[in-house]
């Protein structure tokens, strides 16, 4: 490959503010679409009337009590998963690292299943348990990345993650087979969906999302330095070990919260940072902020598709994200030169 001087110069990027503004507009439009479109009988015109304050009682009920919480939860889940994907990719320095693919979401789901079997109440414990499971999954992934140079080979790490996901998923299925009561409790949660969630669920995860966001703000600069190499980061006055730990904790909080509400959803954390890098370049700080907005856009769009595709029934959100995400995975793997992180 011949590299000319021109190619070596950084491409001109749109300023971050412009990008953010454009994406926020997009997010607003998707939110509106999420309120207007549904699997049920309330059509866009009726829903629009309900949003403006009139319209039938049915339409208002559907929009206010069903679609509004669903949209808000979609925004929270999307932001959490997108941000977590960007964080894990940055800390593993691997463009394929993704909470769903690496088994972090599956760890969270297994933790919830185990807690339910042990007699925990479904409503109260779920968030913290899911976060502990996610943390265990994250730590496992990082441990694997240190074995035999797996960390230098993005593709091998993903393989290990896929295997771990399969194992944890099988264990979860087995627990649910054995304990029918828990299975009934979480049957609609385990497939990954935004349907039928209440605003209370959002309230339960909001504190940990705020904590995680604060952590992200704290680690953004050290992470960017870490991308230049461990020695450079130390030279710039950062503590790589500490940075990694905080990043992993933030990612676990985010994935655990998202999984607790919506169930395990794969591929969002892969697609979102991928798109963010395409828009804003490799700087991890820009990637993080763009992921925060791109995540909700992706999740809400996928959710709308999942409502409309097989209307009047619905299908799991995870199916739609897999259909969107798997081609991206293949594209990243196929890329002649994998983007280095």
């Amino acid at each position, binding site marked *: 490959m011949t590299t000319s001087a021109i190619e070596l110069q950084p491409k001109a990027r749109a300023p971050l503010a412009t990008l953010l503004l454009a994406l926020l507009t997009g997010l607003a439009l998707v939110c509106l679409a999420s309120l207007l479109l549904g699997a049920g009988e309330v059509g866009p015109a009726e829903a629009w009337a309900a949003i403006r304050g009139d319209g039938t009682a049915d339409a208002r009920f559907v929009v206010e009590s069903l679609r509004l919480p669903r949209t808000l939860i979609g925004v929270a889940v999307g932001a959490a998963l997108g941000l977590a994907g960007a964080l894990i990719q940055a800390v593993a320095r691997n463009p394929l690292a993704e909470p769903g693919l690496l088994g972090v979401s599956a760890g969270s789901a297994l933790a919830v299943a185990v807690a339910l079997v042990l007699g925990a109440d479904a409503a109260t414990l779920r968030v913290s348990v899911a976060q502990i499971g996610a943390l265990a999954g994250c730590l496992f992934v990082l441990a694997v990345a240190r074995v035999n140079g797996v960390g230098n080979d993005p593709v091998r790490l993903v393989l290990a993650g896929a295997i771990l996901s399969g194992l944890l998923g099988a264990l979860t299925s087995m627990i649910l087979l054995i304990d029918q009561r828990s299975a009934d409790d979480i049957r609609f949660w385990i*497939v990954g969906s935004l349907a039928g969630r209440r605003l209370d669920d959002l309230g339960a995860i909001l504190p940990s999302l705020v904590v995680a966001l604060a952590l992200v703000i704290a680690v953004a600069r050290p992470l960017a330095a870490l991308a230049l190499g461990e020695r450079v980061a130390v030279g710039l006055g950062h503590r790589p070990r500490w940075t990694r730990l905080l990043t992993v904790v933030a990612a676990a909080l985010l994935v655990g919260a998202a999984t607790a509400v919506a169930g395990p959803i794969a591929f969002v954390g892969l697609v979102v940072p991928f798109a963010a890098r395409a828009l804003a370049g490799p700087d991890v700080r820009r990637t993080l902020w763009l992921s925060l907005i791109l995540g909700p856009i992706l999740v809400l769009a996928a959710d709308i598709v999942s409502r409309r595709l097989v209307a009047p029934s619905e299908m799991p959100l995870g199916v739609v994200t897999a259909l969107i995400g*798997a081609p991206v*995975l293949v594209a990243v793997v196929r890329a002649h030169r994998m983007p280095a992180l």
Partner: protein
Amino acid sequence: MTSRSLSCASAPPPSVGAATTMTTSTVSMTASPCDSPSPAARPPAGTWQLTWRVRDRRGSVLFDRRGTAANLGLVVALALAAIASLCAGSLPLSPLAALQGLAGLGDPMNVFVVRELRLSRLIAGLATGAAFALAGCLMQTLARNRLATPGIIGIDNGATAFAVASVLGVGVGLAPPPMALAGAVTATVITFALASDIGTRGYRFLVAGIGVGAIFGALTQLLLARVAIDAANAAYPWTVGSLNARDGASLVWLEIGLALGLVAALWLKRDLACLRFADSVATGLGVRVKRSRYAALGVSIALTGLAVAVAGPVGMVALIGPEIARQLSSSRGVPLVGAALAGALVMVSADLVGRLLVAPIEVPVGIVTAIVGAPFLLWILLRPAARFRH
């Protein structure tokens, strides 16, 4: 390798006691190495030579001693597992009663339970296990990668999606086996086209396969979401892998396919042994690399598709079976028969465990093999770089 072949020349003449018992009217057996044209043609150490002469044409076959012993051991273990599988269940039988029932003797109730209920399940387990493991062994050999099994590169999921479509009556109204075959071929073509090489030593190929598998898995879910709940429940076993879902017609397809596949695989055995080396070496040894690879790939896809049509995606067997066979037999060739036997053993044992573990609830065999197989797979992926075994 060189040191081994040098030591063979001075090895004692092989015992061919086993061969002398086999006699037929047209084949006259000679059981001594002095029949060989020159001392240099002595069989290598660790093998039995079986020579015969039909009119004026001479022929001989080498049996690897360790491999043969391993296969015999696997057959014994398989027989024990099969008897256990016939005995266990909600009506426990003694081994003797089970065998009597199998022969059609004794208590009519036992005969009914064994021959009508348990036997077909056992046969399904044996056939699917052997087919999955043989397919896995072929795929691993042609890709020169122990992780490259049909389950990992998405072929299982492709076959499952098509089989589910057939059960649900979506699209073409074909029976599950041809649909599963079509799905397996589709997934393979997509994966290989995307990976743009046959995956020798590359992990990239595997991740492309994981992506393709994820798409087909999502399509299966999409199909299940579109139909009524009863139809979805009927198709559900395919998505996790269970021997409960088998139907007789698919099993016949699989049995025929397995018989043909075994013959084809054994016919390819010599080529496969050479394919383990670099392409240039294999070519130099007189193997038509591309042709053998496509042939092995075809057999592998067909076996996987037919097995999925019976039992759903139990992809881990394709990994565990060949691995057991490889540990047991010598490193000289590709242990195709051993892999098939070990696969059948794994499948029957996993099904037995799944039935007994939390009886009366039945854990699908796909879940049992996933839990057993995944740590194993991780170990293969993460262990220190493999050295050549001497």
